[in-house]
């Protein structure tokens, strides 16, 4: 194995049967070590979870191609947070602050903030005023009407004001009370309330800086996306391709290495696999080990990164503002009647997580085990039945659950939950499967009764977004309808706590409260795999930022070793 070929797998040629046997043996051994208790959730992956950066100097040139399931409907970052747009918007544009690239990080969970357009940032004593010092000499792309003019603090101010004014990021940016630009390269942001986590919010992948001139000329950003980023959007033909061309005037001199990045709209999964096999695509996501093995049969030299999720984006959302789900005993009973491990074992082939909502890396070092999640998250059907009877439902009840099938395994999960609730609690769940728009409209409307297979937005990396924004009772992103004064207090307190260790302690209290009250009933989710062609370098995905999705900025540091 060449040392400069990160993550290349030895051609062990495991077949599915052998893999299952080895995994089972591994799990069995772990169980013995753990004193015979049931395995936590995920079977050990045969692939590394990190692809170290290449030690060789990067080579310039080449075209990176990716067959993508996503097609951006619009390219206006004010109006969508869809991965369709942000699979490349992070390459055309920069943010003030960013997360580390794969050649800067040592492991996927490194979320240390780095300067992007900002060179440095600091807060006043109460963390209500944040000052960002911008890099000097950053130029907009040399495309009309910007024509390579210099970026100034006024541009960033204009952009944040536009985000606050309308669109999907309004809630985040409306916490800004006012902004001032003492000079061309300084932006001072005054917040309505103290927030020590504000830099994390402007580091979110969706908080890109767009061009003022385009919005003023076009009235929207639907046709042109011009930024300061490493790539210029050369073509966007819906349902065909997105072509990004290297920005020769990029402020990070010598970068990027790859000349062109082409994203081919390929809605069918079998076609994406075929495209990867035949070299028409350089990156592909696979959900299961058997999928990866199938690819490795024809392409044995591919690089595989096991992508461990730090959270589960889906769970059973209950109408907890009304009976019977406003009774914590009912929520706890339901949670205990669901066999999550069975879902991991059967639906996700043993390679999945039990489910939790806040990225664990913000409050502990290792993924939570079933024990960490607390008593109400263990599969204890007898106690669940007893608790439901105590809550006044000894004979169960009727309810509904609607969902949209985000991925094929989801339907199996929904049916397993239905079976568990019927079998253990005599709760009859009537399932309705909707298409995306029908589901989404009903879900975010937050007026539904019964249950839904709920989600939390996929793009967010920051702790503030994952706690205050998604759980505070006043937040418009609080889809699970959490209305808990202690959570409100803790999430607000978290924003006022600058110390990292204290932040971790408060984050832990938030999740403990969430688990105890079963405020969001997370369901198992898969760990997937990113598969790269053997010649790709510096492409590893970090936690909450997949290279083929929101984590696309890492491609600015990738190169092709041919």
């Amino acid at each position, binding site marked *: 194995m060449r040392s400069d070929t990160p993550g290349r797998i030895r051609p062990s040629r495991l077949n599915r049967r052998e893999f299952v046997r080895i995994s089972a043996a591994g799990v069995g051994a772990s169980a013995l070590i753990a004193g015979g208790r049931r395995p936590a959730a995920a079977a050990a992956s045969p692939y590394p979870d990190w692809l170290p950066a290449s030690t060789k100097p990067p080579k310039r040139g080449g075209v990176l191609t990716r*067959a993508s399931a996503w097609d951006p*409907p*619009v390219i206006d970052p004010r*109006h*969508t*947070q*869809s991965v369709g747009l942000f699979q490349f918007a992070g390459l055309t544009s920069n943010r003030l602050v960013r997360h580390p690239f794969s050649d800067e990080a040592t492991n996927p969970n490194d979320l240390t903030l780095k300067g992007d357009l900002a060179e440095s940032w600091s807060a006043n004593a109460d963390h209500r005023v944040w000052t960002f010092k911008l890099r000097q000499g950053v130029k907009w792309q040399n495309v009309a009407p910007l024509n390579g003019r210099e970026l100034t603090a006024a541009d960033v101010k204009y952009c944040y004001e536009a985000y606050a004014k*309308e*669109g*999907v*990021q*309004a*809630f*985040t940016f409306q916490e800004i009370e006012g902004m001032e630009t003492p000079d061309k390269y300084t932006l001072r942001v005054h917040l309505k309330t103290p927030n020590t986590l504000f830099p994390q919010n402007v580091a979110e992948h969706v908080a890109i800086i767009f061009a003022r001139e385009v919005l003023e000329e076009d009235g*929207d950003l*639907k046709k042109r996306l011009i930024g300061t980023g490493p790539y210029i959007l050369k073509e966007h*033909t*819906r*349902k*065909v*391709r997105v072509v990004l061309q290297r920005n020769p005037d990029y402020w990070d001199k010598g970068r990027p290495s790859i000349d062109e990045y*082409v994203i*081919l*709209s*390929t*809605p*069918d999964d*079998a*076609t994406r*696999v*075929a*495209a990867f*096999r*035949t*070299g*028409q*695509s350089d990156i592909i996501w696979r959900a299961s080990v058997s999928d990866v093995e199938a690819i490795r049969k*024809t392409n044995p030299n591919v690089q595989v990164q096991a992508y461990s999720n730090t959270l589960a984006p889906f769970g059973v959302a209950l109408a907890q503002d009304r009976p019977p789900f406003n009774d914590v005993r009912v929520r706890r009973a339901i949670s205990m009647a669901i066999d999550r491990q069975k879902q991991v074992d059967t639906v996700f082939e043993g390679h999945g997580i039990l489910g939790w909502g806040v990225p664990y890396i913000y409050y502990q070092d290792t993924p939570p085990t079933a024990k960490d999640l607390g008593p109400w998250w263990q599969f204890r059907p007898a106690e669940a039945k007893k608790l439901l009877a105590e809550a006044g439902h000894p004979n169960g009840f009727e309810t509904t659950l609607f969902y949209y099938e985000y991925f094929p395994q989801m339907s199996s999960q929904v049916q397993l939950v239905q079976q568990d609730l019927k079998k253990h609690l005599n709760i009859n769940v009537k399932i309705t499967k*909707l*298409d*995306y*728009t*029908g*589901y*989404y*409209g*009903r879900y*975010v409307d937050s007026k539904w009764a019964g249950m839904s297979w709920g*989600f939390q*937005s*996929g793009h967010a990396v920051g702790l503030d977004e994952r706690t205050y924004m998604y759980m505070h009772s006043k*937040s*418009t*992103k609080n*889809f699970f309808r959490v209305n808990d004064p202690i959570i409100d207090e803790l999430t607000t307190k978290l924003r006022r706590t600058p110390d990292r260790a204290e932040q971790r302690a408060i984050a832990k209290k938030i999740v403990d409260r969430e688990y105890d009250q079963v405020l969001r009933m997370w369901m198992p989710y898969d760990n997937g795999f990113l598969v790269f062609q053997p010649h790709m370098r510096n492409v590893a995905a970090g936690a909450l930022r997949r290279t083929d999705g929101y984590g696309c900025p890492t491609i600015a540091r990738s190169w092709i070793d041919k």
Partner: protein
Amino acid sequence: MYKYVIRRMLLVIPVLLLSSLVVFGLMRVMPGDALTALMGESGNVGEKELAKLRKDLGLDRPYHEQYALWVWQMVSLNPGHSIFTNEPIAVSLKKAIPVTLELASLAMIIGIVIAVPVGVMSATRQDSASDYVGRVIAVSGLSFPEFWLGTLVITFAAIWFHWIPPIGYVSLWESPWKNLQQFLIPAAVLGFRLSAATMRMTRSTVLEVLREDYVRTAWAKGLEGRIVVYKHALKNALIPVVTIVGGQLGVLLAGTVVVETIFALPGMGRLTVEAILFRDYPVVQTNVMLVAATLVTLNLVVDLTYAWLDPRIRYR
């Protein structure tokens, strides 16, 4: 003849009106609207803002007003803009129609090229080995759905030949060779399915015609078998075949939805499915009306073809 054509064209009006009412009604009955889809998974859009956007897009108007406005737009050949992408629908159609037209035409050609000779061969060699082979092919074509066949073709082409049609549509004028590579296999998948019914019909009608008196006369005159079959029998056998081919157009258009998705071709099928998923009312309505108008016109053309094939047919 002219009277017949005019009468048929007048009948098109209620058909299209009814279609317009059905598609308009169905789209409004479906839960959710384009704004919901457009907002993505953010959810942090206030009620006021949603109401404003809904007003800007005219979605807050009563249904009868929305319908009347849309019908007027259609009549004035200005179908408006996509709610979802803001692109003029005419522009979207200009991009999508050539793709579907090329795919459908190629599929039709491939389908007929397979169906007619195989059907004739099956009929002229009834119950022989070649007849059985032809019938098995026909039954296979009827049995294999496009999504299955298309997926199989693309998967095994990648595994066995390390080749699949290039992804990323290129127009015929940009690169004829690349375009042909992109279209030939999807068209063959569609054409194979299309050929099945046509082949079965060709076989049975040719068999029937071969037993007619005038064919016996032709044989008795000592004409060559090729001339008897292709000149005398086939033309008369083609009327039901043409009907079948005309009727298959609807199936063909439905098939393009799947095939365009598998082979990543940006045609009408993908445009319509996406528009349905995102409740892009004007796009769905326009596309459905376009397909309805096309089918009605083609049915008329098929009916008129009968007279050319059989001079005994008169239109009154």
